[in-house]
């Protein structure tokens, strides 16, 4: 068991940084504007991230598994480490970075190192989703903006009452966002370990009510790491997100969080995918997407809905640059670290 924990450590580190950064995407505006207290946000975030990871985490992780079925624990450790290092360095260099993009790049690095064939179908699906997710988020935000504006116009809710309602709404959207974040992004943290480590866990049954299989236990551990990230480091990021980058009113903050949560959920929920397929409707691929980019997409959507005056084309440029830069850097880092782990530490990485 202790070997597993050592090897999982890189994934747990990735989970911690995801908790610190991405939880802030979901809760930043609510906490930064002091509509929701940090303690409440951190508690709700942790619970729902865990639930999302354990209940709906397998979909997006399956797609990552298709891209690269990392069969050795040391390989998985190195891939997660490479992604974590890339995220760490890029954050230090103030470059836009997403764990989703870093882990995909790192898996490609493993593919190249091990000489495995890259599943181009899975890769195109992932890349297409990255481009599509912020756009979809913007569209959802525009629709929600008009619906909510018209509701507010007709219901004539008193400012003070609206404040209370907005708090409840922000809390609910935050919980949903955290669930979706856990469901969609646990794949980044633990996805690479599924093939090599999940078999080492035995199923745990809770009084015959429900059973946690190996993958779910793995995701639970990853969820805990994310929760630790939320409690220990996300407050600072939340304050920056909430009061610095996006100038949003609490209601637009709610729209932004809800839109990006819907997008994260669409790309994570197996249940929804099955439902759409059973009704012969086009379904969404289950792919880990960047929560930051969904948020930025939604903010841009609000800008468009307000008449397009606040559009910042530089932001769009930075997002597009991230689609290319992050995976390339992560792939390079993975290739180098795999080489070191294999040759210096004599570990089997594939």
């Amino acid at each position, binding site marked *: 068991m202790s070997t597993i924990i050592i090897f999982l450590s890189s994934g747990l580190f990735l989970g911690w940084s995801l908790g610190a950064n991405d939880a802030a995407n979901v809760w930043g505006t609510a906490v930064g*504007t*002091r*509509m929701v207290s940090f303690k409440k946000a951190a508690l709700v975030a942790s619970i729902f991230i865990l639930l999302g990871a354990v209940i709906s985490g397998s979909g997006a992780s399956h797609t990552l598994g298709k891209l690269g079925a990392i069969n050795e624990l040391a390989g998985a450790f190195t891939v997660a480490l490479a992604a974590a290092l890339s995220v760490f360095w890029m954050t230090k260099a103030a470059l836009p970075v997403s764990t989703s993009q870093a882990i995909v790049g790192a898996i490609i690095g493993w593919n190249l190192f091990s000489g495995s064939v890259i599943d181009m179908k899975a890769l195109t699906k992932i890349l297409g989703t990255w481009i599509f997710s912020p756009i979809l988020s913007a569209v959802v935000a525009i629709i929600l*903006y008009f619906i*909510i*504006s018209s509701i*507010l*116009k007709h219901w*004539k*809710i*008193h*400012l*003070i*009452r609206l*404040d*209370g309602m907005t*708090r*409840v709404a922000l809390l609910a959207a935050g919980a949903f966002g955290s669930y979706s974040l856990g469901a969609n992004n646990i794949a980044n943290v633990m996805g690479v370990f599924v093939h090599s480590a999940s078999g080492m866990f035995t199923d745990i049954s809770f009084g015959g009510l429900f059973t946690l299989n190996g993958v779910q236990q793995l995701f639970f551990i990853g969820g805990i790491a994310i929760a630790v990230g939320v409690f220990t480091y996300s407050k600072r990021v939340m304050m920056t997100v909430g009061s610095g980058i996006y100038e949003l*009113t*609490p*209601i*637009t903050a709610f729209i932004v969080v809800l839109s990006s949560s819907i997008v994260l959920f669409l790309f994570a929920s197996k249940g929804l995918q099955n439902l759409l397929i059973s009704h012969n409707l086009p379904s969404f691929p289950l792919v880990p997407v960047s929560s930051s980019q969904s948020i930025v997409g939604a903010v841009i959507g609000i800008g468009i809905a307000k008449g397009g005056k606040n559009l910042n084309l530089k932001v769009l440029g930075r997002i597009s640059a991230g689609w290319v830069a992050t995976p390339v850097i992560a792939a390079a880092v993975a290739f180098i670290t795999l080489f070191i782990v294999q040759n210096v530490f004599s570990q089997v990485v594939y």
Partner: protein
Amino acid sequence: MLFNRAKSIESSIDKYLENILTAGLIFESGIKEYFENKFEKFEERTKEIQKLESESDEIRREIKYKLYKELLIPDARGDVLGLLETLDNVIDTAEMVMIRFSIEKPTIWPELKDDFLELTSASVKSVFELVSASRAFFREITKVADSLIQVHFWEHEADKIEERIMRKAFEGTFIAELSQKVHMRYFAERISMLADEAEDVADRLDIYTIKRSI
């Protein structure tokens, strides 16, 4: 729990705005009574407005305390308190003008009586429209602009009437003493000040409204 708290502050705010409206009504009736030589009634009105002013101060303090203690509307708290504080200037001005009338007892010139009543009516209308704008700010933000246009309109009307009174007082021959001419100018300016205060609040409200539109 959350909504009960909201309801109590909502009714405090409603009561506060209602008091501003009542202050306008008392002011208009009081000035009319003064010009109709009903001085006893005028003095009663002055007492009424003094009572209303201190009651409103109390309500304003209560709202301020609740907003901060219960951490409500963090984003709009400053604006709401700013609005309530500047609205307080309106009621203060109304009270101050009536007290000046009561103390200085300006002479009633028949040549100026209608102008003074017209000036009072225009100033008070700007206050009424300001109260409508403030109510809209809390409940129906899209309606604020319409009322603000009317505040500006009545303030402008008041300015015109004020100028008319001053010209009549200084250019006409019915007032002999310069001191009395100056006294008429002073009271025209004071009554018109009510509309000026209303316009100051309206300008703030304009900004607060832009900030609040989602």
